[in-house]
Structures are given as C-alpha cells and as structure tokens.
C-alpha cells in the first residue's frame, strides 16, 4: 500500500517537476486510484510541492533554465492575487469556478494545438 502511495507521488512529482502544473497528475491519481478525499489530496499535494519545487528548481537553475530577472515581479504580484483569490474563494461557487477554468484550459489547449499544427505545416513546406 505504501509502495503505491510513493509510486503515485513519483508519477505526480515527475509532471510537477517538469513545470506542468503542481497537482495535474497527482490529485487525479490520489483521488481516483488511491481513494483519497479531494481536500486531503489537495492538502498533501500543496505541502509536498514546497520542498519538491525547491529541489527541482535547484536542478533547473543548474541547467540555466530559470529566468529570475524577468519574473520576480510576476511572482510577487502572483502572491498578492493568490491571497485575494483565497479570500474570494470562500464567497464564490466552486462549481462555477471549476467549469470556467476547465473551459479556459480546453480553449487554450485547442488554440495551442492549432498553432503547433500550423507551424509544423509551414516548416514541412519550406
């Protein structure tokens, strides 16, 4: 049992360490396959993300992939909005927020897919 929990964490951690969303894979695996409750999975993912991202960031920095100068302000602004968002979240309907975010994600994914296909076509014609 513990093995599967560690394994689930490793899978989720790989996706998170690559910068593809903290709980993108972790939370579905925990809730669907390991039967964690949604809130419990979110809490574990949240707390695990902190040390994980420190280690992963260290490796990214070593590879020269992190652009601090351009983004420290973004990080700061993000913190402010995160706090505001947390205070707002208790007042807004979670269901509505989820659907809106879902539509946004799918829309953006489709847009990016189209751009990818277009650039592939163009490079093939050259």
């Amino acid at each position, binding site marked *: 049992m*513990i093995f599967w*929990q*560690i394994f*689930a*964490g*490793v899978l*989720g*951690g*790989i*996706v*998170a*360490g*690559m*910068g*593809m*969303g*903290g709980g*993108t894979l*972790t939370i579905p695996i*925990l809730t669907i396959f390991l039967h964690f409750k949604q*809130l*419990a999975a*979110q*809490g*574990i993912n*949240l*707390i*695990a993300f*902190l*040390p994980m*991202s*420190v*280690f*992963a*960031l260290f*490796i*990214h920095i070593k590879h020269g*992939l*992190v*652009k*601090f100068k351009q*983004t420290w302000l*973004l*990080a*700061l602004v*993000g913190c402010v909005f*995160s706090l505001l968002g*947390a205070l707002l979240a208790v007042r807004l309907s979670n269901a509505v927020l*989820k*659907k809106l*975010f*879902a*539509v*946004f*994600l*799918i829309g953006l*994914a*489709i847009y*990016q897919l189209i751009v*990818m296909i277009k650039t592939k076509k163009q490079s093939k014609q050259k």
Partner: protein
Amino acid sequence: MIVVPVLNKLFGMEQKQAQATALFVILPISLVSTIVYMCYNSIDFRSGWPVIVGIILGGVVGAFILNKVKNNVLKGIFVFFMAVSGIVLLFR
C-alpha cells in the same frame, strides 16, 4: 497551467525555460496558498508522508527529464496535460 503560456507568449520564453521558470514563480504563490489552506484545513501527514516523499523524488526526476526533452515535444506533452486537465475538471 496559466503561468507557462504567459511566460511563453508574453515574456517570449521557450517552452523549456517557461516550464522551469514557472516553478520559480509558483513557489511563493504556493507558500501563500498552503498557509491559507492550513488555517482552514489540516494536512494529514500521517497518511500522506509516502506520497510527499514520492512527489519530492519524482520532482527531481522530472527536472532532469525537462532538460533532456526537446522544446516542441515538451509543448505537445504540456498541451496534452492541459486538455486532459480541462476535460477532467469539466466532468467533476
């Protein structure tokens, strides 16, 4: 999922750098979120520690993988996860 495309399009970073830098941007934001979360909910360390250990290990592996994979492949994987996340959220 939002930071990476923003870094990509508005800040002009390549996919690899955008994904790596996103971790830097999201770390303090996550810290804020975690503190707020802990004010309203408790985090179950006793049943959660194996997962936490796994995530830390996986994160290191993922960081090495990010460096090895080409930008356009990364973009494809990222878009895939974005679409799947959206669909999963839509039906929850």
